């Protein structure tokens, strides 16, 4: 809960960002308006990682369906053999693409599973931050409009 009290003390969003800058490695990923309420993937990456140059990598394994059964609940999973400190998911054409960013402290496996919402057919990208660089894996997930929605 330490980082929470830091954030609380800092008070405003910009102060929280300042706190992030002051503790670039020690502070865990916290929600930030600038990273999450942002329609541009590049800007979100900048906000999260201080850079947005990414390299597709076969070492990042992304599991996502070809066709989503239901756009409201799309299971996704990423794992990597790289030594990761952070993992993020982007859903390209969602109003705000960044869905989640997770911290992977030492001793924790570089793996995250969750379920996301997708408004329409688009690319899902997993971003792994490792040794100051960003590695990605992407996949297009089709979202269809149901016929027998009941």
């Amino acid at each position: 809960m330490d980082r929470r009290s830091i954030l609380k003390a800092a008070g405003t969003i910009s102060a929280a960002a300042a706190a992030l800058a002051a503790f670039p490695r020690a502070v865990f990923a916290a929600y930030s308006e600038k990273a999450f309420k942002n329609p541009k993937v590049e800007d979100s990456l900048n906000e999260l990682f201080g850079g947005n140059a990414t390299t597709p990598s076969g070492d990042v394994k992304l599991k996502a369906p070809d066709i989503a059964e239901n756009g409201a609940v799309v299971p996704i999973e990423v794992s990597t053999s790289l030594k990761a400190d952070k993992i993020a998911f982007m859903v390209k054409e969602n109003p705000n693409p960044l869905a989640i960013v997770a911290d992977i402290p030492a001793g924790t496996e570089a793996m995250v599973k969750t379920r996301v919402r997708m408004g329409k057919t688009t690319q899902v990208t997993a971003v792994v931050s490792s040794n100051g660089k960003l590695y990605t894996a992407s996949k297009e997930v089709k979202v269809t409009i149901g016929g027998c929605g009941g």
Partner: protein
Amino acid sequence: MSSIRIKAKERKGSVDVKTLMKHNMETGLRKNKDGSKIPEHWITDVTAESGGKTVFAAAFNTSISKDPYLAFAFAGKKGDTLKISWKDNTGKTDSAETVVK
């Protein structure tokens, strides 16, 4: 009853964690029957602590599905305690503890 369900099981020195957090995760895009927007309401931060240190943390957007699900794995053993907490955008928090099986 806590809003958080946790399953934590050790497998060769690694603890597999699966957690489900009951939360509406309102996107702010849905409308009431009268046409007014339902305000956004979602979990922004989740942390998992074990043995006095953070073993996993995540920040969510509104695009995480209702009743968010997370699975991860950390170095630990049977008998360790694991505490998972969340905070939402209204400042509400909840937490739950479990013992690794």
